[in-house]
């Protein structure tokens, strides 16, 4: 069985994101980029499934600019077998991304597609669900545990009320939570080895999917700043302020 894992290149989660003064977006020049955090969990989970003998190949897919090759190489250095980059030079919406992933899945025929639960740049939380619907494969979103047994998987999902368990047939699409596992670091020898692993570059024309954005971005602005508050010296003062000044207790 083959596992397809999607990885997105995003602004690193430690970077303080700045809005551009002309309102067209956020500052991306000279900003540290890295793999979308839950996508690392997706890669890790795929590698563990392979190591347990239940899969024989882990294929990494990214859709984005040329630099996304670095993100794919990171996943290859963690231990994945080969990569595919579908090159697009502009921002691309989950709707189009899911169509591309579904198209690649039809060619590659994986038994499982592992994705992150949310991209921390657009915070859409859509692509895995869309991919599942397009392929008519079951979806297992917000997964914090994946157990595979005989063409079925038992998934523990994190939901607002607590936890939910579902059983899905293979093939299926899962979106991974950060609590699914602890992603490994790539060792130096593996980083060297990853440079020689196959990475297939495809153009959007090869895929033949319309990726024109449907949503117009009118403007991007900073959220209203909170006024800086005060420091209190002890609990008694705090309670007095909450009672008489803020009037919230």
């Amino acid at each position, binding site marked *: 069985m083959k596992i397809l894992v999607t990885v997105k290149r995003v*602004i690193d989660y430690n970077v303080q*994101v700045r*809005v551009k003064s002309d309102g067209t977006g*956020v500052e991306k020049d000279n900003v540290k980029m890295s793999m979308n955090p*839950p996508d690392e969990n997706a890669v890790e989970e795929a590698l563990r499934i392979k190591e347990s003998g239940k899969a024989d190949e882990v294929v990494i897919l990214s859709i984005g600019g040329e630099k996304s090759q670095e993100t794919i190489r990171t996943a290859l250095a963690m231990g994945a077998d080969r990569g595919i980059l579908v090159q697009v030079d502009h921002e691309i*919406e*989950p*709707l189009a991304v899911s169509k591309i992933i579904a198209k690649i899945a039809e060619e590659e025929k994986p038994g499982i597609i592992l994705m992150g639960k949310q991209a*921390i*740049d*657009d*915070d*859409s*939380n*859509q692509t895995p*669900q*869309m991919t*599942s*619907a397009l392929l008519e*494969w*079951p*979806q297992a*979103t917000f997964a914090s545990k994946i157990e595979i047994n005989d063409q079925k998987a038992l998934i523990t999902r*994190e*939901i*607002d*009320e*607590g*936890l*939910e368990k*579902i*059983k*899905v*047939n293979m093939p299926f699409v899962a979106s991974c*939570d*950060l*609590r699914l596992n602890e992603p490994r670091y790539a060792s130096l020898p593996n980083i060297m080895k990853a440079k020689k692993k196959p990475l297939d570059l495809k153009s959007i024309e090869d895929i033949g999917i319309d990726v024109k*954005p*449907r*949503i*117009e*971005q*009118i403007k*991007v*602005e*900073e959220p209203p700043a*909170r006024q*800086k*508050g*005060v*420091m*209190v010296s*002890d*609990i008694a003062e705090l*309670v007095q*302020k*909450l009672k008489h000044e*803020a009037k*919230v*207790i």
Partner: protein
Amino acid sequence: MSILVIAEHNNNEIKVATRQVISAASKIDDNIDVILIGYKCDEVSKQLSNCVGVSKVLVVNNEKFKNPLAENFSKIVLSIAKNYSHIIGPASTFGKNILPRISVKLDVAQISDVIKINSEDTFVRPIYAGNALATVKSNDKIKVITIRPTSFDPIPKEGGSGLIETIDFTEEDTSVEFIEREESSSERPELGTARVVVSGGRGLQSAENFKLINEIADKLNAAVGASRAAVDAGYVSNDYQVGQTGKVVVPDLYIAVGISGAIQHLAGMKESKIIVAINKDEEAPIFNIADYGLNADLFEALPALSAELDKLNTIEK
């Protein structure tokens, strides 16, 4: 224009989020239908029809749909989607699970986590963990939207008189099976709608110590929240998490204890009206957004707070 709202409920009661979504919908148009999918949910259909602003409640009542599997729910909504200009649900794990499936099948782009409605096609939503707000315009024929419930006041639950209609739908997806749900039960108010939230972070050091947080919460009739670090360390379960990948809360009072204030945590609470931070590190970023900061050891501050709240209550009595 006509709007379809997908109701979130537990077969006995509608979630407050549903009333908040109807409230958001009413900012677009007053022709609002609500679809209720569930089993033995008669009581819920009455509650919905009583909500102000609801024209029609469309009920699919079938044992197969007792649990909200996205594969089934999305197909049911799709069967009537063509009648609507907007299809709207909550940006909860329930809504996030279902709406993208509807959107892709209609070949329209979904707009997630809307916090403000400017017009029938223009919306504001946070991106980058709330570090930026994007105003976006959808040119699609049908707009599929998830609403951040806490950004809208719920519509009143009494005063409406919506018609109740049933829809027949029996097709079931057999590739997925619901097994079980472990809901953490709590006597405290629900995190998403509580007026006061007391949250603990890694500073609490153990599950055992979280009782210090619980004690304060009980005295303030508050919900308990947590940082991701506290959840990851196993102090409390996942449904307590506040933040970019947890819940968004907008209480009148948010008390953050032993939480450093990472942007991913702030994403879930920085719209709170009053923020209190208790932290022993005076440089902790949480102090930058706190209305009242107390630089102290929580193991001394929390018992003191508890005692002070007792005093307050005795004075009032």
